[in-house]
Structures are given as C-alpha cells and as structure tokens.
C-alpha cells in the first residue's frame, strides 16, 4: 500500500501528529501495536468500571494543549483533580502543581483524551511494525507489520516508545546516513519503568482521605484513589505506582510477587484494609516515563536520499515532557513534515 503519510504508534504524540496533519487536509494512516489507542494514557475496565493504570490525570500550562483537552473531554472532566493531595513525596511531574498549571481527569478515564484525538482518523490497531526498509532509492520507506502487511510511505512518523523506535531505526536496511545520525540523539534520552497495581476493594470500603498520595520514600511513588474521579456509585479502587528504582529491581519478578509487596507497603502506610483487595491487576510499564531533564527540545527529522522523510516524536521530544510534551511534539513534527504531494505529481 503506497501512502503519503504513515504514523507508527497511536499514543498521544502520534495521534496529535496525525490530527494536525488531518486538520491540514492530509490523510495519514496510523498503525498501532495494541488493541486500542492511547499508549500510556491507559484506562482499563474492571467489571465495567474505568480505571486509569497509567497516567493518572492530565495537566498542562499551554493554552493550546488545555484547549485540546477541553475540546476532547469537556463536560466529562473533573476539573482541578487531584485536589486532596497528601504526602511529602515528589509527584512524577512536580510542574503539574506549579502556578499556571491546570489539572483535570476525565470521568470516563484518561484514555478518553487520546480516543477523542483518534476520532475520524484512519487508525489500524493490532498492527505491530517489525521492520523498516529504505526502498525506491530513498523515495519511500517500506514498513512491514507482524501480520504480513506492508506499507510504502513517503513520510514516516515514529511515535512509539523509545526503545522500539531506536530498534526499528537501527534495524533499517540499508541504513541511510541521516537515520544513523539520529541514534546518538535517541541515546541521550533515558526512561524509567513503573510497576503499577490496580486494587479494587469490597463494597462498603470507606474512602481514603486523599485523591493522590505521594509517600516520602519507596517503594511507593504514588497511591492514586481512582474512585475519586469517577461518577458516584463507583467501587473503591486504588492504583499503586512503584518508584523507578524499586521497579527496576523487581520488574523481572513474577507480577503476583511484586504486586503483593507493593500492596503490603501501601497497607503499612495507609491502613491494613489496603492489603486486602477483592481484585488485583498488576501492570508493568517498562518505559513509564522519560527521566526528567533528559528530554530533547524538538522532534527529529531525517531526510533520505530520494526525498522520503522519517520523523520521530513522543514525550521525549519536548522539554515540557509528559502528555502535554507528547502532544506538542506530535504537532511540532506535523509542522515539519512539509507539504503534501501536489495534484500534478
């Protein structure tokens, strides 16, 4: 399939990029490895109730991003959430609580934001990209997916997680010099894992006195009271997030083992009831976030000999980082991808 624009990865960066291109009259195709869009803006259903086990809330300080959140989720937003914030620990993005920063959480789950960005786009889920190849003398990049489909794109956007991006580019054959030149830049960015546990409690479990707690020391990085951002009547659900250091040490253990350890640690700090949920779902985020300070300032672009363009964006390609950074990086890359094919061509 011959395409002008192909975006790999339907997280916030890839979708923001595809959205901006679509708004400019282009027709990008987005391929996504997972079954649904959103990446780390992830919401699971536990017996039908939404639970955010990745990004717990949206925050930002730029008018454009906040307007995009408003346009996507509007009436469904719990504005200002989290309000009851406790603990002397450091939020994963301290900037979220600085003056000028606005916070909110969609009642339907944070995944509602990327889902709204994806509305109307040609997004193909369940399509894992396994190889890139320079073809037609660098006029196209051929993209092969695990299920055997191939696409030939004039402009390719990699908006998948950093390791996957680095691996796909490293494995590109033949490897164009412009693509090879991106490797040391990707190497400057560091990521941190996060082990997370969804814990649901029996009916009648009283509400804890916080929306989010940041304990002062490990193994817990954050305890999120997910129910506090849901519609009335929702079951009591906590999401436990481990610190990066603790996650690195335990990520290779069985999920049931580290989930137990995290719940016990949470119970020690927040009360014995926390240790006995009636439903537990562990989730290991191997690259949960970009280590603060290692972000690059802009998306990357490599132009091949035949004029094909390979762009890279994501939350690592904007100094703001996080969801807001990802969104800006996606749009910044869209602006750098150049005009579409002329009708005569």
């Amino acid at each position, binding site marked *: 399939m011959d395409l002008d624009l192909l975006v790999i990865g339907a997280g916030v960066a890839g979708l923001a990029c595809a959205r901006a291109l679509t708004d400019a009259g282009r027709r990008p195709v987005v391929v996504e490895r997972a079954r649904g869009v959103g990446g780390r803006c992830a919401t699971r259903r536990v017996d039908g109730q939404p639970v955010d086990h990745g990004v717990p809330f949206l925050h930002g300080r730029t008018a454009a991003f906040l307007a995009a959140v408003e346009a996507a989720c509007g009436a469904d937003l719990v504005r200002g959430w989290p309000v009851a914030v406790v603990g002397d620990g450091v939020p994963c993005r301290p900037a979220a609580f600085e003056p000028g920063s606005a916070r909110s959480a969609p009642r339907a789950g944070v995944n509602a934001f990327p889902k709204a960005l994806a509305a109307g786009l040609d997004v193909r889920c369940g399509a894992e990209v396994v190889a890139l190849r320079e073809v037609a003398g660098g006029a196209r990049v051929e993209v092969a997916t695990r299920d055997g489909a191939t696409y030939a794109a004039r402009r390719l956007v990699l908006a998948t997680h950093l390791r996957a991006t680095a691996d796909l580019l490293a494995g590109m054959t033949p490897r164009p010099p*412009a693509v090879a*030149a*991106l490797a*040391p*830049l990707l190497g*400057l960015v560091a990521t941190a894992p996060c082990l997370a546990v969804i814990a649901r409690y029996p009916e009648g479990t009283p509400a804890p006195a916080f929306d989010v707690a940041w304990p002062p020391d490990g193994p817990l990085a954050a305890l999120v009271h997910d129910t506090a951002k849901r519609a009335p009547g929702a079951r009591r659900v906590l999401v436990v997030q481990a610190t990066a250091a603790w996650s690195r040490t335990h990520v290779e253990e069985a999920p049931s083992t580290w989930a137990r350890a995290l719940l016990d640690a949470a119970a020690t700090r927040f009360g014995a009831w926390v240790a006995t949920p009636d439903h537990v779902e562990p989730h290991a985020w191997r690259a949960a976030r970009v280590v603060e*300070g290692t*972000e*690059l*300032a*802009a*998306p*990357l*672009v*490599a132009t091949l000999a035949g004029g094909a363009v390979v762009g890279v964006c994501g939350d690592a*390609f904007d*100094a*703001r980082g996080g969801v807001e950074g990802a969104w800006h990086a996606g749009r910044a890359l869209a*602006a*750098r*991808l*150049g*005009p579409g094919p002329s009708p005569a061509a």
Partner: protein
Amino acid sequence: MPLSPAQIDAVLREEATHECAGVGSPKVCVRMVAIADLPTRFGTFQVAAFWNNRDGKDHVAILHGDPLDREDVPTRVHSECLTGDALGSLRCDCRDQLEAALRAIAAHEHGIVLYLRQEGRGIGLMNKVRAYGLQDRGLDTVEANLALGFRDDEREYAVAAHMLHSLRVRSVRLLTNNPKKVDELTRLGVVITARQPHVMPPNTYNRFYLETKRDKSGHFFDALGKPHLAEQGEVVEVAREPS
C-alpha cells in the same frame, strides 16, 4: 553622569506599582527592583536588576551614563552564556561579544547592555553541554542542534523590549549583526534608529584569543578543531528547516 540616588528612588518607586498586560504573546511583564553602582574592569556602570512574571531568572541591565528618557541610546542585547561569559570558553565568542559591548557603551556618554539570563533547565546550558558532548565525538548535525538547541526566542525579545520600556528609553541604536533582532524588537514596539554592526577587529583585548586560534599550541589546544560559533546566542539558535 550616572543616575543620582534621587533619580533611582523615583524610578524604583514608580516601578514598584508597575502593572501591564505584558509584551508579546508570552505576555512578559518585568519590573526594575534595584539599581546600584557597578565599577568593572571595562568601565564604570550601574546595574539594574529586574523581576519578571515568566521565569525565575533575574535579568539585568548594565547602564552607562543616564539613558533614561533618551533617544538613540547605544544598546546591546546579550544572552547569558555561562561557559563563554564566566568560564572564558573558546568554543564561542560570547565573552568577546560581551566585553566589546561593555567597552562600546562605556565609550559613549550613555548606553545599555541588557544581560538576559536565558540558560536554564530544558534549554540553554544543559542542552548546550549535551550538544558540545556530541560535537566532541564528531556528531555535529543540524538535527542535533535542533533537538538540543531550543531557545525561547519570543520570550527573550519580549523581555528585552519590556526592559527598554522600563528604562524609559525612547529609541535605541542596536549593536548587533543580527537583523532578526532588529525586526523582532521593532515588532514589539522598540524604536530602533540604527543598527550598528557589532564586529570585533583584532585589538588589544581579543588579539590573545585570535592568536590562540591561529597558533595551535599551548593550553588551548583542546579548543581547536571544535566547531566555532561566531555570534553570541547561535549555540542554541539554529534556523528552522524550510517546510
């Protein structure tokens, strides 16, 4: 003559109640909070420290004579470069540019150097050092400069424009080789009577640097062969690719 204590008191009193909608789209507002004498090895100046509503950086203006309410004030806008300004790096000309600017305004009856503190997290210093690190390994590409070289130009010009306004300067003669600075400041309401090239012919003060560059020996060998960035600010200000 420098500003008198009475002039300083009057200006600061007025500044203390200053409020405005802000300059440019970043809506930058600055307020002068202190002025003091500053004798330097380049001349005798006064320094004015500014608060601003956008970042935690204390921007300063270095004043010679009494530029308040004047026309055609020789003015240089200098962006902080720690490695060059303070550490004497030979990878850029920032120190030479700054020294030349201070000497230039000291030679005039009145003059201003705006010293903008722009280096900070996410932009500037950290990414400059990362870029230098890549250059050391021969990885010097336009893409690397873009990825590491983001600078908030718009804020920088807005800060400069407002500082000149706070100093009640009616018009300036801008010391710069960069026509973009003239365009941007004009757009933000600064009246520019002329652009004076800020070039540095070999002289007593930079001959040492130039000779070091020519003579590949001595302690400065390490600086040789590094990409050399001529105009102050260029380290982190690279032309966007045409789209």
